[in-house]
């Protein structure tokens, strides 16, 4: 019975981790294969281990992901403690010590750290909003929705739009990030820009094109990160760096 409970709880932990994204890539840290372990002990303490594509990945992003994982898992009512450990990173010791003591990024990295991570988190939530919006708008236009109607659509109307299956998935993803830019009340406009302002019919094509750059950029990062992770680690046995001199398999994970 106890074993079953722990297995269930582990599954709950993984489900929570699924909600944590790499801020740059806007993809779950689990899908990216960053998380290598998520254990629950008899005292309901959670132990998470993760790794990143390079030894050099930005310390603030690394810290932010660890912090997001801790927050997400702490939301589970039965959790008594969470520790998150980063492996194989230039600042692994420093980051792990900071995490273990519950310090902020700033406290961990001293006076030169540029503020807390909230601004950084917001910057990338806005980019994620833009990417998801660009994908949804492009799709809705392609399947025949008129730009005139889209710019006036309310959130309430978008939620019941019932486009095709692809559209439904894009709507759900977009709605997750829509509150990032302004209050997502049902009567509010569904599509607004990063400042929360309405979109204009005349400039909609240019606007969607500009957002595409955000997407092209993110795609580059995603391909590079996945590729480097595969070049660096033997993905079958987590936390094992590839042997020196061993040629890595070309990655096709990013295709």
């Amino acid at each position, binding site marked *: 019975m106890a074993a079953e409970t722990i297995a269930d709880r582990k599954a709950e932990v993984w489900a929570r981790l699924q909600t944590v994204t790499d801020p*740059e890539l806007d993809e779950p840290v689990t899908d990216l294969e960053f998380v290598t372990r998520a254990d629950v002990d008899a005292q309901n303490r959670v132990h998470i281990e993760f790794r990143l594509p*390079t*030894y*050099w*990945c*930005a*310390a*603030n992003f*690394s810290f932010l992901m660890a912090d997001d994982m801790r927050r997400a898992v702490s939301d589970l009512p039965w959790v008594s403690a969470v520790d998150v450990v980063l492996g194989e990173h*230039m*600042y692994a010791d420093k980051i792990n010590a900071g995490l273990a003591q519950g310090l902020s990024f700033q406290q961990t*990295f*001293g*006076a*030169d*750290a*540029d503020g807390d991570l909230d601004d*950084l988190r917001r*910057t990338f939530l806005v*980019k994620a909003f833009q990417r998801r919006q660009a994908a949804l708008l492009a799709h809705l236009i392609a399947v025949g929705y008129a730009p005139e109607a889209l710019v006036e659509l309310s959130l309430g109307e978008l939620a019941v739009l019932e486009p095709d299956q692809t559209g439904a998935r894009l709507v759900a993803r977009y709605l997750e990030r829509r509150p990032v830019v302004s209050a997502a009340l049902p009567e509010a406009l569904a599509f607004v820009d990063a400042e929360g302002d309405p979109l204009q019919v005349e400039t909609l094509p240019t606007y969607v*094109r500009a957002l*595409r*750059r*955000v997407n*092209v*950029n993110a*795609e*580059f*990062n995603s*391909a*590079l990160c996945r*590729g*480097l992770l*595969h*070049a*660096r680690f033997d993905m079958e046995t987590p936390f094992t760096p590839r042997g*020196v*001199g061993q*040629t*890595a398999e*070309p*990655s096709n994970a*990013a*295709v």
Partner: protein
Amino acid sequence: MYRTASGEEIFVIDGHTHFWDGSPPNQKNIHGKQFIECFYAYHSNLSPPAEKWSLEKFEKYDAKTMHDDLFIHGYDDMAILQPTYLTDFYKAGFNTTERNSALKKSHPDRFILNGAFDPRDGNKGLEELHAKAEKYKLKGVKLYTAEWRGESKGYKLDDKGSYRFLEAAQKLGIKNIHVHKGPTIIPLNKDAFDVGDIDDVATSFQDLNFIVEHCGLPRLDDFCWIATQETNVYAGIAVALPFIHSRPAYFGHVMAELLFWIGADKILYGSDYGIWTPKWLIDKFMAFEIPEELTKETGSVLTMETKTKILGLNAARIYDVDVEAQKKKIRAGGGYAHLAQAAE
């Protein structure tokens, strides 16, 4: 020199090459080991299988190997040597102007030797810049704004300290400022690899050219916006280019965006040797076309004329290379002997 099927000669200037020593005897610490291994991961992940090197070769290659890879097996006519000091990780530095100068000395018509500076070095750094500019007749520098140093997590080009160095560079005739705004090289914070500081200095220093290496990836979106507004901002496509093999559709997107936003006159080819080699990169680039659908949307086309600009003419313009005169010099030095043999 690249020759098209119809016999047209395309002069190639490789905007981004390195002559490094990342081998274990030169590694100062674990960071040195991890650094070269990270480069190697880029190499092995994005190269076609047949172009992959062993780690041992990758860690340290000799001058002849580099010369032949660029100019004999590859299509480069000239190459710009961009330094990367990393003296915290490597005993004699990783890829210094001093080390690179040996190549320039033995092949003066082939190489353009660039320097480096770091505003955090203050007056001592300014003195060194003066000395090196004079000694090596520098026309360009490579900067890493995101480099962590001690407690500092990088600097910005629009800092007061940076202005002093840019003013000095301008006086010394260094007019090409290559700035690494690309994938992480050392853990860095968002500000340091933000491309926003380029905007400010490009406006303040109209006589300088700012070449944003790796076209701001992973910040392409922000970069395109800045580059459209400034006439003296360029995009170096090293690191973006090898995607032409593993993800050609994606590479098409990058080129379409760059051509749409900043135009054909502002894009510079770079192999990033020894991470990648010119032969396969240029073979694929010359055969590449932007997919029709993207062209319809952006109006961007990779015409022969555009390719010629990207591969050499743009760099020739900002480095004052007279292409015809340079070809004559290289030919007189026997640099094109292999082409004649191949033609026979």
